């Protein structure tokens, strides 16, 4: 660049730092894991905060709420709300378990994604999850989002009938 400040990272550095996984899944690492493997890891490393039945606790519920979004008490979970499973892989890897993030292996992560999807009824028992699966699985609320279309209120200042001159 024009300033010539800084250094150029190596390709290996970039690969190691670049952990964000978009819906195209191109950045997903190699690996795989089964729903059953995920179950075991979940019960050991996640259930304390999210509940043995993913019902939530200190951490949010990870299942349930399908069909609730238009109700008075919507429950937004991975199953009921999240549009992409790539987000699940990305988020667990970068953030969970809360106190020791970025410690799970890729195989463990695929397994956990599989288990959470299974408990949401999105994949059947026995499924082996890999990169292709994470990209291709159809999340129930995939079409539930549209681009911000605000402003959506059309309030008007009241110059005529209700704005009084300010007294000192």
């Amino acid at each position: 660049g024009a300033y010539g400040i800084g250094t150029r990272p190596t390709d290996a550095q970039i690969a190691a730092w670049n952990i964000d996984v978009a819906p195209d899944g191109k950045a997903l690492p190699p690996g795989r894991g089964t729903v059953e493997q995920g179950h075991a890891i979940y019960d050991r490393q996640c259930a304390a905060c999210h509940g043995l039945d993913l019902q939530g606790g200190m951490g949010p519920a990870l299942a349930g709420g399908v069909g609730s979004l238009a109700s008075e008490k919507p429950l937004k979970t991975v199953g009921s709300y999240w549009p992409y499973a790539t987000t699940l892989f990305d988020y667990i890897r970068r953030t969970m378990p809360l106190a020791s993030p970025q410690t799970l292996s890729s195989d463990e992560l695929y397994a956990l994604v599989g288990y959470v999807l299974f408990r949401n009824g999105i994949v059947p028992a026995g499924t082996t999850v890999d990169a292709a699966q994470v990209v291709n699985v159809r999340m129930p609320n995939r079409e539930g989002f549209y681009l911000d279309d605000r402003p959506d209120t059309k309030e008007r200042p009241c110059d005529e009938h209700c704005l009084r001159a300010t007294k000192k």
Partner: protein
Amino acid sequence: AAGEPTKTGALAPADPDAFPTVPTWTRQIGAPTGKGYGQPSPHESAVTRRLYPGLTQPITAYSTSPLQDLDGGITPNGLFFERHHAGVPAIDPGKHRLMIHGLVKEPLLLTVDDIRQFPSVSRIHFIECAGNPSFLPPWGKTAAEVAGLVSCAEWTGVSLRTLLEEVGLHPDAKWVIAEGADAAAMTRSIPLEKCLDDTLVVYSQNGERLRPEQGYPLRLVVPGFEGNMNIKWLRRLHVTNAPAYSREETAKYTDLMPDGRARKFSFVMECKSIITQPSGSHQLTRHGAHEIRGIAWSGMGKVERVDVSVDGGATWHKAELQSTVHAKALTAFRAPFPWNGEERVIMSRAIDETGYVQPTLSALEAARGKNSFYHNNAIQPWRIASDGNVTNGRE
């Protein structure tokens, strides 16, 4: 002969010993000069940030600026609101790097000192959490509980545009994924257009280096966009052709509508204002002339005008903008308020330079229902009882 003989409308009797001719502090030498880093008066020790009442997760939690005790447009660094998802990391600035990579010609790794050698910019901007405040009861008791997840500072850093020009953008570049170095590795996708407009990579706040809880040593400032996008502890900028759909832009910070669908990429914080004095928990102590004071802001640009009503919204008066108006910054306003014991509901309504008018809560609910959670910029009423006690005016 001491006393307050002509006090008009005083509700409590004056204490004749309250103000001696030569106070003790005038008769004694004061404290020495040269405290390295100063602190507020002990008499102001109640002016602090607070967790929301009932909030029990101090790690992924938020604490509010005490708006009801503050004046003007700048928030002091010690009282700038906090919001973290995995606590405040203790970053060694010498070991911190910012990587810029992706759809760029030359990826770059920068130290904090490197970044300080790019052209620097200082600008005053607010940052506001998108969830400030909830659409649902219980309504906050104080201005902090109602809108304390907003603060404003002078930020110094480099224009993100400068850094993106330095790395050279690929023609397919459309988004920038920003990532923090905290244990949440907080991640948000920001449209390239905004990155090339007024987004900053900052290292200083109100003159000094960023506070740890504000992203030390580097944070993104995305003026007018929801607070969560102003990535703290910034370590990576990934230039891409599509958004990441990270958890904070899908599970969170999307706005659920009555039909069960949700708005995504709802970034802008719309125009808003709140009366901070008098406000909930304040107590008027005498009759006569008073001031209404508050703050107004807009993520779309400059505040153009603020109106206040002292009759529950039936009639309005133009307030005076009492501080210099900066774009996407808190603007202090004031209006005279003669009060002689009447029950009153007071409120303010801001209008920004785009002509957008701050809505009522019912207008927002009509457009969005009650479960959209984020981006509540409704008019806030305060009720003044005849004894001078001020409480939240929401029914």
